[in-house]
């Protein structure tokens, strides 16, 4: 056990701080959920240039080309969080498609797509879920039929985040209807401008349209735009999902929220008494603080295991479940501390933090559901982590 970083890393930390001191003012104030603004793209390019994002992605594909070093990545995250600055863009293209292409794409695909995606110029959406295939993703039915050099796609996706603002989609389709469920799927990448695609925004409970329905009618996609070959889509999708789950349940975010709530409870009053002086609310804050600390230290433990190439086993499997739940509970405390003010929304008078707490409370529930629901996580923890019996096979329809 040694929580000091050592001189090499402290020097690196100093470099990061120097960057922040010099360039911090250029950071975009607000990261939109959909298309990166020009200001955001400029910031992103600056970060790449200095090795502060896309750090380990090879130069030839538009990254910075450093050796992987988990501790340096963590130092960057720590310093940016401490300074309240946005890190690099973390959309689905960058977080999920880029690592997938690096692992499984052809040279041509890597050359063509990775650099503009990293710069925020090309925006991607993830076309996996369908009306009939959510948790049971491998049952998906969207069909791609061979026709000369193309596939012709027909079917529907749903819950497709940011599809309305995306240039491209990475999409799972069934190319071998005769094959077994998991073996008949392929992973295609194509433009959202392709004729035959219709995007219908789906308004969510937050009041915004964060995701969409996407309909495909005779959409023609060149066969070469497949990743890892026909029938290997399930394997590719799992590579992608691994990257998604790493992203959800991040304890740094919980740490930032805890700070915000602590400030809020020192400022806001009820009957003229600060919330922090109210023993019941204060007790809830302290109880959540313990949970945030536990997840942060847990993160350090996983980081150490990753750096040593060890498999932390069950310790890793619980992060999505516990992390998303904790964030949700933090938002709930902020709302409760604000009481009736906590339910104000949109542009109401007396609104706090532009309604962020209600938005988070709702959006977090989406994250508890998306990326593998809490129940699916519990199946994974009990089966893979504790070695309990697998689900019995469903009865044949």
């Amino acid at each position, binding site marked *: 056990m040694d929580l000091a970083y050592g001189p090499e890393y402290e020097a690196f930390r100093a470099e990061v701080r120097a960057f922040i001191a010099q360039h911090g003012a250029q950071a975009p104030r607000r990261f939109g959920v959909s298309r990166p603004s020009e200001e955001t793209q400029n910031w992103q390019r600056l970060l790449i240039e200095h090795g502060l994002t896309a750090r380990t992605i090879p130069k030839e594909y538009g990254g910075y080309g450093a050796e992987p070093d988990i501790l340096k990545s963590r130092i960057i995250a720590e310093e940016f969080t401490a300074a309240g600055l946005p890190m690099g863009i973390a959309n689905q293209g960058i977080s999920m498609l880029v690592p997938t292409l690096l692992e499984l794409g052809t040279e041509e695909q890597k050359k063509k797509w990775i650099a503009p995606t990293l710069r925020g110029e090309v925006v991607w959406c993830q076309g996996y879920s369908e009306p009939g295939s959510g948790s049971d993703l491998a049952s998906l039915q969207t069909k791609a039929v061979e026709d000369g050099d193309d596939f012709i796609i027909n079917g529907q996706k749903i819950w497709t985040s940011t599809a309305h603002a995306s240039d491209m989609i990475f999409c799972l389709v069934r190319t071998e209807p005769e094959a077994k469920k998991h073996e008949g799927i392929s992973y295609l990448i194509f433009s959202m401008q392709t004729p035959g695609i219709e995007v219908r925004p789906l308004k969510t409970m937050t009041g915004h349209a964060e995701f969409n329905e996407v309909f495909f009618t005779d959409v023609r996609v060149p066969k070469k735009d497949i990743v890892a070959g026909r029938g290997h889509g399930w394997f590719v999708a799992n590579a992608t999902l691994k990257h998604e789950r790493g992203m959800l349940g991040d304890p740094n975010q919980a740490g930032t929220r805890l700070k915000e709530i602590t400030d809020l409870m020192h400022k806001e009053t009820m009957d003229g008494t600060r919330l922090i002086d109210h023993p019941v609310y204060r007790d809830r804050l302290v109880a959540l603080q313990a949970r945030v600390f536990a997840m942060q230290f847990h993160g350090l433990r996983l980081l150490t295991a990753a750096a040593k190439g060890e498999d932390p086993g069950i310790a890793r499997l619980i992060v999505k479940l516990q992390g998303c739940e904790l964030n949700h509970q933090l938002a709930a405390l902020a709302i409760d501390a604000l009481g009736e003010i906590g339910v104000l929304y949109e542009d109401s008078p007396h609104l706090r933090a532009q309604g962020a707490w209600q938005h988070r409370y709702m959006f977090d529930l989406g994250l508890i559901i998306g990326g593998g629901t809490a129940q699916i996580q519990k199946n994974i923890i009990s089966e893979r982590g*504790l070695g309990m019996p697998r689900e019995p096979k469903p009865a044949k329809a």
Partner: protein
Amino acid sequence: MEFGLSEDQKLLQESIGRTLEKVSPLERVRKAADEHAAYAGDVWQALSELGVAGMLIAEEHGGMGMGLLDAALASEMLGRHVAPAPFVATAVMAPIALAGAGSKAQQAAWLPKLASGEAITGVAVSERAAGAREGAGVAASGGKLNGTALFALDAAGADIFIVADKTGGLHLVTGDAKGLTRIALTSIDLTRPLGELRFDNVEAEPLSSGDAGAALKRMVDAGRVMLAADTLGAGWAMIEKAVAYAGERKQFGRVIGSFQAVKHMCAEMAAELEPCRSLVWYAAHAFDTMPDEASLIAAHAKALTSETGRFVARTATEVHGGMGFTDLVGLHYWFKRIGLNRQLLGSPERVRHEAAVLQGWAAD
């Protein structure tokens, strides 16, 4: 940066675990409990031979000079095996008190005997750490103690006691001192008896060579981390027993572990308890290396692990159905161990309040 156990620490923990598996199986625990024994002498001897009694005592006094994280790993194993042996007071809190506030002579007189396991020290600080009940409290004046101390730890077989008075001063009292009445308190947990001490003009040596107030705080912090580690070990033992039972017990023509309701109970227990391990490790490490954070993290570790332990203890019992409710499978020893740990040295509610005070969020 490395957040994890060293190879030595892993080996240490394994060897304590193996020894306890041998000397302290369920039948041995049951025997000690049925006899209302002060502690199981054979178990204590085996632990002492491994150096557990003197883990935290400096080598010059015959101990191993280890850190609190090592002690936490030992404590986790004691909880895992519901070991009927003293530990928290005699091997952790007393050495910290003597090293922090004892005179050279007091240290020389007692530390070597504690290190070898030859002497056992009880610790009576409940009124300071958990709050005074029944009007208990000890007054010190002119080298004499008067009053009552409740819920003394490792008290039943103790040769000496370290006692906190009402002002936070620490005193050393021999077990056979004149005017001292020792009363056994029977708790749900028969693996670690509690004691009541009544003082009627009892002669006591003050521990006044260092800062006794600071030493008291340190010993309570360390004790809280140990109890959290004990609950962590006991909790994981219960999860493993539940998973194993669910893999064998059949109802409706299939093992109950294939019912999702049962699987999800097990997954929830594991998901809640495993982050407590990271918190306990950090708390123990902070105790040795980060004095500014130590008390806060110790409080958090104690509170969160106690809350999670309660959930695990009842849920693992439920997974065992009616069998979990019986004496037969002995699951209740773990259930009760976790139940006792929760209240000792400060309940979750009390230590969370302390955590708030430490951060300036509440008045003392």
